[in-house]
């Protein structure tokens, strides 16, 4: 029979029994064997695995020195040569959740399988990133046993190197990663089955959650166009020839600032489009067919707008993920505000 899997448990100062907020400056420490909720975890792990050590730190100290504390915790964790790290459950304690996330990221980077547990609204969940597995926990310690059971179940699979299925099948919080898998029935059958279940009022599970989009209230309009600096931005994949910022033609996450300075129009070759979702021949022939710099310069010359902003913010939106594009939009808004831009025109393909 093979040896028991070695599990290290990460806790904060409270669950390690050191003390409450008054001890949240407690340094990163380690103790052999299980501590506090680790005793229950050890029991849940059963005969196949055991808690060989517990590493803990004060939440306050960790929050103020995250990088150093995570490195220190990792060193302590590695002294136990673990097959698995379980962090938390952090419930809805924000600093504890963030500490669990940081410890898990550090341990995972060092090659240790990790799982953490916390409430889905704990800021530590998004901070754990897309590679760390997080199982859901209640918002308080009443959900201790359930959370530890879920963490142990998934953690043992990770430690053994078993194939991990979808979030719904394995009971972890969705990380935004999709896996391809072969279905038993073809799409047509699954679609008809789903619609029949829907008609009969039976429960059914969609295969593709449609992202819900935030409603944005329209801002105050531009008060006086004649005094307004206007920017052109685009998702049309417009880049200088050679694509120096390595935009990809599909599912791109890059953006860059280029310049219209000194250009009254965009002749062929000023920009090219690397967008993979439309026929770029016409735009490459004459980039103003996308960006209309010639027209906006004329509007400025004729006094209809004050000026065209010289900075051109560019990305490729083909097949872009909403979250990614939202991030780009936020970055652009910051740039445009810095540049005193009052209105934006976004030609889209």
């Amino acid at each position, binding site marked *: 029979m093979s040896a028991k899997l070695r599990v290290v448990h990460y806790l904060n100062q409270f669950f390690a029994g050191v003390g409450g907020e008054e001890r949240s400056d407690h340094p990163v420490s380690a103790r052999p064997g299980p501590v506090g909720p680790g005793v229950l975890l050890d029991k849940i792990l059963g005969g196949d695995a055991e808690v060989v050590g517990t590493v803990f730190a004060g939440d306050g100290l960790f929050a103020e020195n995250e990088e150093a504390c995570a490195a220190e915790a990792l060193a302590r964790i590695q002294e136990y040569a673990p097959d698995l790290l379980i962090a938390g459950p952090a419930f809805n304690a924000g600093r504890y959740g963030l500490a669990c996330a940081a410890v898990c990221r550090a341990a995972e980077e060092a090659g240790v399988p990790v799982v953490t547990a916390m409430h889905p609204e704990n800021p530590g969940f998004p901070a754990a990133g897309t590679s760390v597995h997080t199982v859901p926990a209640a918002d308080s310690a009443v959900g201790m046993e359930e959370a530890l059971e879920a963490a142990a179940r998934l953690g043992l699979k990770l430690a053994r190197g078993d194939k991990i299925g979808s979030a719904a099948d394995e009971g972890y919080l969705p990380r935004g990663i999709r896996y391809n898998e072969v279905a038993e029935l073809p799409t047509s059958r699954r679609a008809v089955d789903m619609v029949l279940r829907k008609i009969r009022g039976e429960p059914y599970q969609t295969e593709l959650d449609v992202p819900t*989009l*935030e*409603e*944005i209230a*329209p*801002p*105050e*309009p*531009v*008060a*006086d*166009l004649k005094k*307004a600096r*206007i920017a052109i*931005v685009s998702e*049309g994949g417009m880049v200088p020839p050679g694509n120096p910022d390595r935009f990809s033609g599909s599912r791109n996450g890059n953006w860059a600032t280029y310049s219209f300075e000194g250009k009254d129009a965009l002749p062929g070759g000023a920009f090219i489009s690397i967008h993979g979702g*439309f*026929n*770029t*021949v*016409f*735009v490459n*022939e*004459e980039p*103003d*067919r*996308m*960006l*209309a710099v*010639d*027209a*906006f310069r*004329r*509007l400025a010359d004729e006094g*209809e*707008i004050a000026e065209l902003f010289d900075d051109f913010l560019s990305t490729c939106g083909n097949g872009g993920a909403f979250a990614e594009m939202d991030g780009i*939009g*936020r970055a*652009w*808004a*910051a740039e*445009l*505000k810095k540049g005193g*831009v*009052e*209105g*934006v*025109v*976004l*030609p*889209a*393909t």
Partner: protein
Amino acid sequence: MEREGIPTVIVTCLPDVARDIGVNRIVNNRAGHFHHPFGDPSRTPEAEREWRLGAARAAVKTLAERVDGPTVFEY
């Protein structure tokens, strides 16, 4: 960008898509095309430039218009 308070208009030949995802200011430039929102290669170069000037003017004018939600402006 509109969330951050900067009026923004999308120029597109797919106004329904833009409206369905909640874009507030949309210029539907029907004479343009999916492949070139500010172009119309079927015109002579001179006529295309004049058409584009009109499209750019239509776009900036929407920035000064008050809208309550997704609104399509025709060009």
